[in-house]
């Protein structure tokens, strides 16, 4: 099976957040706070995580995702799920 790199997960994650929040992915970085910097509320987070689940054919832990603080936390969680 083809390995999905962290770089690829990061790109997808930033792109998905940009589309959902009406932002440019170039303006985003992995250290941004989901609520304070990106204004992501629970419904936005659900859309973001469902799109990423669909793309990577995994199932995320929704409760964990909803408690995450930074973009990098989502990437960490996805990386573990994808490679487990």
């Amino acid at each position: 099976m083809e390995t999905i790199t962290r770089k690829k997960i990061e790109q997808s994650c930033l792109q998905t957040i940009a589309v959902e929040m009406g932002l440019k992915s170039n303006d985003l970085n992995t250290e941004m706070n989901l609520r304070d910097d990106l204004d992501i509320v629970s419904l936005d987070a659900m859309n973001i995580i469902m799109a990423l689940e669909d793309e990577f054919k995994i199932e995320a832990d929704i409760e964990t995702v909803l408690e995450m603080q930074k973009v990098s936390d989502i990437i960490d969680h996805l990386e573990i799920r994808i490679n487990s």
Partner: protein
Amino acid sequence: METKKRVVVTGRGVISPIGSSVSDYWEGLCNGVSGVRKITEFDSSGASCQIAGMVTDFDSDVHFSHREKKSYERFTQFGLVAALRAAEEANLLDQDGDSGEIGVMMGTGVGGITSYAQAYDALYAGPEERPIDAYTIPRIMNSAVSSAIAIRLGIKGPNFTLNTACSSGGNAVGQAMQWIREGRLRAVICGGAEAPVTYGLLRAWDALGVLSRKYNETPETACRPFDKNRSGFVLAEGAAVLVLESLESANKRNAPVFGEIAGFGSNCDASSLTNPDENGVAESMKLALDDAEMSPDSIGYINAHGTGTRLNDPLECRAIHRVFGDRSVKLPVSSSKSLFGHAMGASSALEALATLLAVQNDCAPPTLNCDDLDPECVIDPVPYNSRKVQIEAALSNSFAFGGSNAVLVFRKWKP
């Protein structure tokens, strides 16, 4: 007997296929410019009726943030913008906001139907299921429209969205009047909003055999109320919102007054889910006149339900004759649906505004496409051209599937 508290209109807002400001709407009504056109928003080629009354000058980017656009479906967006304009015209809210003396009462027929369609498409339209948007439920909710108005304006009184099919907006305005009469609230933002033009709903209405099928190449001629060659209605979208206020409150604030809402007749035919009943329809007009404590002779104009279906128009004309007697032959009776189609739950709110404007301006707007008056429709349909005529008071008729009728009486404002 206790005198009824007087209720006046102090604000108006509209989004419609013939204009999205009150002045454009009134100009469109009087000039008889059709808002019905070919549907281009989706492929309608599988439907027998491929035309609708579409709002073409509404740019949601102008009015809403990215989050609001995700949260609010098109009908909610229409209703909210119309409400903001009405509240602004009424100068309803001061810097202290509302402490619960103002309510919101909106009507819609099918609410967030576009989001239903998108959700089902995600599940069934492709080879595999796709995720359903997390905003689907708030977008679908009928009550999203009244809630959105309250959230944006900080209105803390009772908040309702009612559904009585195609009389929803009329019943909302009437119920709002009752709240104020009862002394429960000093003002209510009320009306109707609808954006029903989806492929599924187009096919569903078509299956009932009530949509116009013969005029796809000449959409402006499709809706032909009272005409011998009428063949049904076309779907439409839009919203109209009024600020109703107790006269006491309006005077205290020096608010502009555009007219008085004097009566409301609401009843149910209790006979059929789909067919109107002449007795119920006539009774709703009588109830409205009784409520206004006015005689039929006081009425100078009727804005008809006037769908342009085979069944409705002669029945409505017979009911008018039963209430107005021989005078009905000369009474100006026009159908605004001839200009922009049938906006379901919003239609009666759009037509309430048309009626208010007719009274304000002493002018009966026309019925389009009534080339050859059906001999079963013994009324004066004000064909093609608007008519200057003294109108002290007027009726706005709305009759819905399920037999839920709503008739409003608007009276010229006299302090």
